[in-house]
C-alpha cells in the first residue's frame, strides 16, 4: 500500500495512465465526493489538516492532468523516474478523428456496437469535434448527427440497440419537433441514444430539450402519439 502523499497523480485519482480527459473529470468529481469538507463518507477519518492537504493534492493532480501540455510533461517525468512505461502514456497526438466503425478501411469492423467497451468511451472523448460540440450549452439534432457520423455509427445500429424506430431517431436528428413524442419519452430516447455514443446521457438529454423548448415553446408536447411511444412501450 502506498500512502496518499507518495502516490503519483494517476494513483491519487485512481486512474490508468491512459485515461481520457473524460475519465479524469469523472475521477476528480468522485474524489471530491470522498474527500470534500462536507462528505459524510470520510467524516472523522481525516483531521482538518490532512483533509486540506489531500484536497490541495487532488486539485493539483487534476489541473496537471486535465491540461494536455502539463500532462505530457508530467508523464515524461514519471517515465524518466521509471514509474511509468512509455507505452502506457496517454496519447493526444492523433488530432484527427479516429473512425470507430470504418467499414471500408478494415473489413472486420464489428457489425454491431458494443456499448460498454472502454475503448469506445475513450475514442468518443478523444474526438475533438465531439468535444467541441459537447462543450456547447445547447445541443440540436444536427449536433447529435454530427457526433454520430463522426464516430461512424449508423442510425440503424442505434435503432437496433435502443429499440426505437429509425424514423423517430431521424426526426430527433432533424429537429422535427412536431413529430417527437412527449418530453418524458423523448428524454429517455435521447438518453439511450447518447449512451450508444458513450456521451453523458443526462447532459445530452437536458441540453437537447433546452434547445428544443427554447425554439418552439410547445415543441415537446405529446405529438403524434401513435408513433414511437407505442412502439417502444412494448
Amino acid at each position, binding site marked *: 500500500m502506498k500512502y496518499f502523499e507518495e502516490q503519483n497523480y494517476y494513483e491519487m485519482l485512481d486512474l490508468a495512465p491512459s485515461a481520457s480527459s473524460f475519465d479524469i473529470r469523472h475521477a476528480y468529481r468522485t474524489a471530491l465526493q470522498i474527500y470534500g469538507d462536507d462528505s459524510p*463518507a470520510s467524516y472523522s477519518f481525516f483531521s482538518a489538516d490532512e483533509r486540506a492537504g489531500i484536497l490541495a493534492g487532488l486539485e493539483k493532480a487534476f489541473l496537471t492532468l486535465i491540461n494536455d501540455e502539463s500532462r505530457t510533461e508530467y508523464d515524461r517525468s514519471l517515465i524518466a523516474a521509471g514509474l511509468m512505461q512509455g507505452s502506457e502514456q496517454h496519447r493526444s497526438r492523433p488530432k484527427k478523428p479516429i473512425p470507430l466503425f470504418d467499414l471500408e478501411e478494415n473489413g472486420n469492423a464489428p457489425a454491431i456496437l458494443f456499448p460498454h467497451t472502454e475503448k469506445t468511451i475513450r475514442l468518443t472523448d478523444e474526438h475533438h469535434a465531439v468535444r467541441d460540440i459537447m462543450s456547447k450549452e445547447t445541443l440540436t439534432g444536427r449536433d447529435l448527427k454530427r457526433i454520430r457520423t463522426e464516430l461512424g455509427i449508423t442510425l440503424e445500429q442505434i435503432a437496433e440497440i435502443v429499440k426505437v424506430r429509425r424514423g423517430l431517431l431521424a426526426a430527433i436528428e432533424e429537429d422535427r419537433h412536431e413529430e417527437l413524442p412527449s418530453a418524458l419519452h423523448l428524454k429517455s430516447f435521447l438518453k439511450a441514444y447518447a449512451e450508444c455514443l458513450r456521451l453523458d446521457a443526462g447532459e445530452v438529454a437536458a441540453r437537447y430539450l433546452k434547445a428544443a423548448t427554447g425554439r418552439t415553446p410547445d415543441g415537446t408536447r405529446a405529438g403524434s402519439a401513435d408513433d414511437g411511444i407505442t412502439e417502444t412501450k412494448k
Partner: protein
Amino acid sequence: MFKSNEGKCVEKPETVPIRIMSNEDSHINNIWPIGGGKGGSGKTFLTGSLGLLLARQGLNTLLIDADLGSANLHTIIGVDHPGRTLSDFVHRRVDRLEDVVTKTPVPGLSFISGAGDNLDMANLIHSQKMRLLRAISRLPYEHVLLDLGAGTSFNTIDFFLIAGTGIFVTTPEPTSIENVYRLIRSVYFRKIRQVLRDASFRELLQEAALRSNGSTAKNPEDLFRILKACDPVQGGRVEESLRAFRFKLVLNQLRKQDNPQIGNLICRICEKHLGIRVCFLGNILHDDRVHDSVCRRVNFLDKYPYTQTATDLREFCNRFLAHRQEPLPLETSLGKREDTTRMPAHF
C-alpha cells in the same frame, strides 16, 4: 476475579497470530461476526434477518448472540425464553457447545443465546474466545452469524480478528460512520499488536513518540508506516495479514434523501488509506415498520415482505452469498508485491 472493561483487563498478548489463521482453522471461514461501532445501527435486526433468509434458502444456519452483556437477539427471532446460554459453555457448566443450541420457530435456523449471563461474561479472555470459536467452527452449520455488541472492546475486535472476516453495519449518519472507522482502526491496531512481539511493539511505540514530538501516534496507519520504515520484514507481515481480511460493509437505515454511494466511498477510503479491503454489500432502506415489527415481536420479512426494505434485505443476503467465496485478496492483488518482499529468501 472480576474484570473491569477494556484497559484494565490484563490479557496475554498473542505473539504467534499466524498460527491462528493457519490452514487448520481455515473452516472458520463460515463464521461471520456482525458488528458496527454504534449502538442502534441495526446489527441485531440485520443478523436476525440474514439468518432467516439464509435458513429459508435451505442453508443450515446458526445465530449466536455474542453481544455479551447485553444480549437481545432472541427477541428479534421470536425465542422468548432461551434455555441454556453461551455462558454455560464458557464457564464449562456444559461440555459441548451443541448442548446450548436452541431451536427457533424457523426450520433450519438454530440459535445460541447470550442472554441471562453473569457480569463477567462481558469480558472474556482470549483463550476463552479461542475455545469458543474453535467449538463454533466444529459445529455442523453452513453459516454461523455472530451478533456482536457495539463499541470497540476487545471482545468485539477479537472476534473480527480471529474470524479474519466480518460484516460492519453502519447508518449514513456521521456518528455511526465515525464509529465504524474507529472499529476498523482498532482492528488494524490490534493486528499490529498481534504480529509484533512485546518488546518490538514497545520499541515501535517509543519510535512513534519520538517522531511525533512526544505525543503518541494518533492512527494505527501512522504506527504501521513507522514500522515499515524501521523493519520492512515485520511491516510486510502486518501488511500481508491486513490484506488477508475480508470485511464487508452494509449501510443500514438509508433514507431516501441520503447519498446511496456513501457505502462504496467508505470502502474506497479503507482500501486506499488503511490498505484494508472492505466489500460493500448494499444499502438497506430505512422503514418505520421495522420499529413496528420489533415492537410487536413479529418478523419484519414476514409481515412486510413487499416493502423496499424487505427487498433490500433479500438483495443483501444474495450479495452476501455471492461474495462469501471470493478469492483471498492475497492471491489477486498482492501477487506482485509479495514477490518483492519474498526476494531475500531466494538469495
